[in-house]
């Protein structure tokens, strides 16, 4: 595992460590996003009620938000993870200019894509994973939403809302 991971990062960096770091960032983002979803949901639920004269009752005309909109609130965490991956990309490239100019060696290798592979692999995979985790969390959240939310609160058009979130319109 170590030697394989070593081939995906600039020569001299610890591939395993870079992998673990990337995984840690993604997992942190996932955890924070999940917490965010939880908080958003519970707040939304309590927002459905008002207190009148000490009695809890449904707010008239209250609409329970779409699951997609709630899940979208966790997007910034995954965006931050993706930004971290871009930062790693910049670091990997600049690594070849620090302490020496190992960029010269990389650029004269018979293997044309070696430099790209070592700089892009982890950051690209990280960004992709971040996106996939976001979609997975969204799916999971929506499944839970549909399971625990009272039927009468679930508005029609949930799928359209999901599509809107993903496509941006």
């Amino acid at each position, binding site marked *: 595992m170590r030697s394989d991971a070593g081939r995906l990062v*600039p*020569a*001299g*960096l610890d591939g395993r460590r870079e992998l673990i770091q990337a995984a840690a960032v993604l997992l942190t983002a996932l955890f924070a996003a999940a917490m965010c979803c939880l908080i958003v949901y519970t707040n939304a639920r309590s927002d459905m009620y008002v207190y009148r004269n000490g009695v809890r009752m449904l707010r008239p005309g209250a609409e329970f938000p779409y699951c997609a909109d709630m899940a979208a609130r966790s997007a910034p965490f995954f965006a931050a993870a993706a930004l971290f991956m871009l930062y790693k990309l910049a670091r990997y490239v600049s690594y070849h200019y*620090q*302490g*020496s*100019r*190992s*960029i*010269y*060696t990389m*650029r*004269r*290798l*018979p*293997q*044309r894509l*070696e430099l790209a592979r070592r700089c892009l692999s982890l950051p690209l995979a990280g960004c992709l994973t971040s996106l996939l985790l976001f979609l997975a969390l969204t799916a999971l959240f929506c499944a839970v939403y549909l399971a625990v939310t009272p039927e009468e609160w679930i508005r029609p058009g949930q799928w359209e809302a999901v599509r809107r979130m993903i496509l941006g319109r």
Partner: protein
Amino acid sequence: MLEIKDVTKRFGSKTALNSVSLSLPRGELVGLFGENGAGKTTLMKCILGLMGHSGQITLDGERITRKNIARLSFATCEHSFFPDLSGAGHADFYAAHFPAFRRRRFEVLMDFFSLPLNRAPRSFSTGQKNQFEVVLALSQGADYILMDEPFSGSDVFNREDFYKVLLGILDNGETVLLSTHMLEEVDSFISRAVLLHSGRITGDISMSELEESGESLMDYVKRAWNYRSDRIRRAIDELSGEAGDR
């Protein structure tokens, strides 16, 4: 044969190389001399494909591409090794990427220079870094070894060791292009001297020709650069003239 034909390289308004042509047959040890900014580094980087240029550079008639680039190696005073990769790690990397990597030679040279195989070069002294850089260039298995002031910062004993090891270790077919300021140090080591001045070739002579003419390399270089040996006397005259006026 490494053929450089009519190579020109401009950086904005500055012309670093101006129509440079040069032929390097196998087996020669060529000294490339020139003042700072003459274009020595630029020429080497053009040969290695590290920068674009006009004109043609061919290796045995073929353009230099990924298919034959392993026949060229590079040692530079800027150092091109991986600072955090151990010596042994470098050997593995080179073996994986350069099919002709000479592992035995690498081990012999590392041992000769007492360079540790299990430490990363970031922790080496300047002299050791220079040595390591040259060891890599020599072990790659290249036919043409380009060295750009590889000894800058090394002490004189280091440098003498280098030249002797180089002479002992090179095959007949291995060619070295060495750019350096230290004319007198290398004049017995090289077989040919090429002079670069402001991006142009101003001299190209074999050492045996030079020997026959009775001129020293230093004198030849001075002549080619129109070095005015009387300029010091003139400067002193001018200065003492000033002093006389006061």
